[in-house]
């Protein structure tokens, strides 16, 4: 009886193994070594504007991979989408740094062989193996685009020109300040404190122990009476500045461009403490059904022309430095405007978003994880 059962199990196991679709990417030691023929389909989770027809259509013609994109509204929605239905519904996600580590540690994405992406070697050095998508030397995707979180101000109302994030914490502009409604905002306070209160010993605004975390949250608590609104959508902040409800705020270059195009007297700056920033990565689902199309897509979106097109469409900076001259050709002056091919020093001044985790390097395990950040943020807003 026992033997029969075992035999049944064995047969079932073999049958199940045969049923698993033979993934076309030939792989040894887990990583594929060449890209096979496309599977005809590619399902993406993306930020709105990341799958525009101007670069998706030529890709479909070239590879025969039909692109189906689902737009996500937030990093957290992206993580949820990549996990639902066993994680095989979508092949890829354009994850920002505050989501990418969550996906890696949650085993929702798989390692990627960057040797199959020829343009990877043209990436800005800081974006080849950044800590938000490369863990222990293993790449979980290819960098795409990035941008800084800037200090936006009304040039008529805010004088002199602000040079420090301290303006967001001083009562001078009480009731006229707006900052993003996002737990990752605690990092902005920590970044400011790392310079304003060096005794706290903050070296990385995403790796905070209890004491450093409490100091940052306390700073934000004192900031709260100064805040007009915590903005959830970029359009909220644009409205606030347009209507005069806010004159100072934490922002993205996108808002500055939109407001300046509307002739609103605003400018943005990266204060002397530096800034936080976001960097997006195309990541490959651990259960992707169309890995060949996914690799073809990574290869395609890394090419200079597509990088430049997307950068100009969205108002961000390409990872591929060869895209800079093409950007200028498409829209004169845009490469300098978005710091395309920025120097190592500029990159150093930007602390890219990454998911706070308890284990924060040097064997320390006392950092506040993202759940704590989220709880603190909810309680802070009250």
């Amino acid at each position, binding site marked *: 009886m026992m033997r029969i059962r075992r035999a049944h199990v064995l047969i079932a196991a073999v049958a199940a193994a045969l049923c698993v679709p033979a993934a076309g990417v030939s792989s040894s030691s887990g990583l594929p070594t060449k890209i096979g023929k496309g599977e005809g389909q590619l399902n993406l989770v993306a930020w709105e504007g990341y799958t525009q027809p101007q670069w998706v259509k030529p890709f479909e013609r070239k590879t025969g991979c039909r692109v189906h994109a689902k737009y996500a509204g937030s990093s957290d929605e992206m993580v949820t989408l990549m996990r639902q239905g066993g994680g095989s519904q979508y092949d890829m996600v354009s994850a920002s740094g505050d989501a990418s580590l969550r996906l890696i540690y949650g085993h929702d994405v798989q390692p990627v062989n960057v040797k199959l992406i020829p343009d990877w070697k043209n990436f800005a050095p800081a974006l080849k193996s950044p800590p938000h998508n490369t863990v222990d030397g293993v790449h979980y995707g290819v960098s795409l685009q990035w941008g800084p979180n800037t200090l936006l101000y009304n040039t008529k109302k805010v004088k002199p020109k602000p040079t420090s994030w301290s303006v967001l914490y001083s009562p001078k502009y009480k009731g006229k300040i707006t900052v993003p409604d996002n737990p990752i905002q605690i990092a902005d306070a920590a970044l400011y404190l790392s310079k304003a209160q060096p005794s706290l010993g903050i070296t990385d605004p995403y790796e905070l122990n209890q004491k450093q975390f409490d100091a940052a949250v306390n700073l934000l608590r004192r900031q709260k009476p100064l805040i007009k609104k915590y903005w959830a959508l970029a359009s909220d902040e644009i409205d606030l500045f347009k209507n005069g409800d806010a004159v100072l705020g934490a922002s993205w270059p996108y808002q500055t461009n939109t407001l300046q195009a509307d002739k609103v007297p605003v400018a943005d700056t990266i204060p002397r403490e530096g800034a936080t920033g976001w960097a997006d990565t195309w990541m490959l689902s651990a259960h992707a059904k169309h890995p060949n199309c996914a690799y073809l897509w990574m290869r395609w979106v890394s090419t200079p022309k597509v990088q430049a097109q997307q950068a100009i469409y969205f108002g961000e900076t390409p990872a591929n430095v060869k895209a800079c001259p093409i950007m200028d050709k498409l829209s004169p002056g845009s490469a300098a405007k978005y710091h395309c091919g920025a120097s190592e020093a500029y990159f150093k001044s930007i602390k890219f978003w990454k998911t706070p985790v308890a284990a924060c390097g040097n064997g320390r395990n006392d950092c506040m994880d993202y759940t704590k950040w989220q709880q603190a943020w909810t309680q802070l807003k*009250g």
Partner: protein
Amino acid sequence: MQPGRPLRAARLYLTGVFWRHRWGKGLVLLAPPLLAFALVYLASLAALFVSSFWTVNPFTTEIEHHWTLDNFRTIFESSAYRTIALRTIGIAAAVTVTDAILAFPLGYFMARLARPRTRAFLFVAVLLPLWSSYLIRVYIWRLILDQNGVLNWTLRQLGLGPLHLAYSNWAVWIVFSYVWLPFMVLPVYGALERIPESLLEASRDLGARGFETFRRIVLPLALPGVVAGSIFTFSLTLGDYVTPMLAGGSSSQFIGNVVYSSVGISNNVPFAAAFATIPLAVMAVYLLIARKLGAFEAM
């Protein structure tokens, strides 16, 4: 043999069964909606309640199926969550009172004073906003209340100082009162219309003056309508999270916003479920009181 024969026989048989067992007909009629009610509505409520006793592993964000009261402890022990719950209930109550005060004279006019044409016009005026998107109406209020919005522009023309209503709990209160007003006007109108003219005449015949008739006849008879309307305004405000998000300021979080961010941001469904049981409990108490006041006859 005619093809219709067996069908006809079956029909006759069924008629006989339903005639012999009267309850059978009711059962057949009610089975589909009851099944849907049990599965879609009660089962999801039960799932909500059960999951509120679970927790989430902070590292993998996977749900751990241990029974614990941790979520409820967090809610009751943290002053932030208490404040949010009280704010939600407080603004819902304020919106309900505001709408009742606005809807009563309007409903009275429509039911007892207006000519048919005026009444039809007022009906359309009350219902028309419901045809446009809820979001549009919230955004329009934002334009009205903005620092440089319509309201402050008007005040400036009149030589009055600007009001700082935009992005505050005042704005949330105003927008909610506006958005849910039709849900109060209709039941109030219905209750007032159903008061027989003869009762008012009798009251006058017995020597009651206008105000006394209103206080002792109209108000008690219309109260169930007001309570019925308040169920809508109160519960709709209690469950909303869009208006606080769009029109609110730096401290305008509602229960719904915490639920939204608990699910969307930290993927903490158990905590969201625990917090969502608060409006459920509040509404249960509210409905019990409403039933005492006869609101269900007025719906």
